[in-house]
């Protein structure tokens, strides 16, 4: 009973992580852009929705469309205007550059949201979905929570299809590996990247609306989710859409159960410890496609021992 309920809680919590991570996967996981401004796009979508529905009184579908369009356009401007000039840089310059630049953007956006809409939490209503609820086996979930689960799964499904079964997805993978060669092989580099970034932004906008409807709307609404999303995407394996989905839900479920059994301070600490161990284990066991575990282990241990040389 409690277990079932915790499982449901975990899945819902996981869906929230997954919801945020889904749009982040394409921008960070696939396109290799560590976008620190993603939380701002997320909140921005919700603010546009708030403006259109709660302040201007238009129906909610208009709000969704407006959020998608405005944030998608914003994404396009950011990608074309600010990120594109960095693509040719060496790896470390690129990573630092993108992190700092999007951090700067995040500051600007957060401040702008606060100045326009205030710091106080707003509540938004999404077609009254918060109210309706379903009950089965003594566990109740709201319609909105269900929708969030469905939406995040649908997001991942679309992404999975897009990355693995479409030209755009193939092109994306190619660009990330070797931009010049991708162009030479006829991938429309600027369009593909633009499309993907805009798609990621638009997905973030819708996710933001849902998150705001579930909880409340503040300028820094996505901040705490951003780091989880980083974890989820990397845990799932860069570029692996399904991996990110699984990691998102795993994290949610882990937290839900950890609350039941672990002294609460250690939930997050243990989460992070597990994460580090996971990376270490993965590095040792699955060394870039090598399947000879023994040899890899020996290699690694030797590499470390070499320090003392």
């Amino acid at each position: 009973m409690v277990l079932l309920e915790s499982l449901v809680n975990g899945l819902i919590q996981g869906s929230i992580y997954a919801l945020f991570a889904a749009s982040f996967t394409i921008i960070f996981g696939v396109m290799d852009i560590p976008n620190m401004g993603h939380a701002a796009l997320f909140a921005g979508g919700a603010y546009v929705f708030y403006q259109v529905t709660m302040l201007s009184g238009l129906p909610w579908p208009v709000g969704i469309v407006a959020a998608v369009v405005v944030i998608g356009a914003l994404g396009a401007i950011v990608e074309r205007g600010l990120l594109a000039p960095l693509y040719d840089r060496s790896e470390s310059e690129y990573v630092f550059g993108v992190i700092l630049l999007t951090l700067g953007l995040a500051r600007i956006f957060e401040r702008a949201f606060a100045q326009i809409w205030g710091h106080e939490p707003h509540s938004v209503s999404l077609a009254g979905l918060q109210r309706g609820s379903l009950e089965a086996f003594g566990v109740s979930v709201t319609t909105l929570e269900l929708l969030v689960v469905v939406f995040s799964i649908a997001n991942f499904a679309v992404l999975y299809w897009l990355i693995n079964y479409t030209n755009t997805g193939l092109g994306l993978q190619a660009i990330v590996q070797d931009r010049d060669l991708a162009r030479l092989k006829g991938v429309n580099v600027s369009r593909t990247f633009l499309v993907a970034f805009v798609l990621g932004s638009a997905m973030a906008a819708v996710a933001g609306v849902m998150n705001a409807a579930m909880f409340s709307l503040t300028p820094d609404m996505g901040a705490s989710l951003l780091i989880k999303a980083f974890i989820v995407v990397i845990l799932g394996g860069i570029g692996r859409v399904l991996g990110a989905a699984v990691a998102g839900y795993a994290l949610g479920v882990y937290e839900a159960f950890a609350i039941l059994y672990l002294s609460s301070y250690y939930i997050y600490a243990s989460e992070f410890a597990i994460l580090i161990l996971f990376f270490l284990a993965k590095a040792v066991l699955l060394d870039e496609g090598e399947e000879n575990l023994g040899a890899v282990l020996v290699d690694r241990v030797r590499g470390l021992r070499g320090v003392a040389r």
Partner: protein
Amino acid sequence: MALLEVNDLERTFGGIVALDGVTFDVASGETNVIIGPNGAGKTTLFNCITGYHIPDHGTVRFQGTDITSTPDYKTARTGIRRTFQEVDVFDELTVAENISLGAFESSPREMMELLDLLDIHDKEGSELTLFERKRVSLALASEGELLLLDEVFSGLNPTEKPAMVGYLDALAERKTLMLIEHDIETAFDLADTVTILAQGQVMKRGTPEEMLDDETVREDFLGEMAI
């Protein structure tokens, strides 16, 4: 005693058998050329000798000591140096700096003189032409006793190849060389012995003349251009 003794080396990658029981010796001062089809395991053999990869089975002995599982940076210090199939130099360092990093005992100047690099000593790695890069990477690799050179001629044009042969001849006076090569003509010019590797196995070893005399070798491995 042979300088290098390779005994029954095996290495697989997943289901792919790259080396399948390779055994041979290289005597000190000898220039040994390894030829064979693409994917035969030549590069993997170099990787296993240097310790870049650890073989699944078999041993590598250098100057009588077992170095099978010695990591690559240590084998480099004991006297086995190599070049990579993808020519590599440090792009952000100048030629002189590159070579100073590679040289432990001998003087960088000597090496640069030998390889005609003095004139370009202050060009950065990223500014070099292919031939220059090849020479710098050769210089980086030339400190050891035994030099493993992976396709040093590939991509060089007909005027550059003879020059490269000249450099290698000069090196061969002092060092033991193993070359992986697809350019049969040039390679056989240099070779004291030739090893044919195919499907991870040593097919035949012998002098260049013996190879050219062998009908099946000619047909299967040398191609008509070598004739």
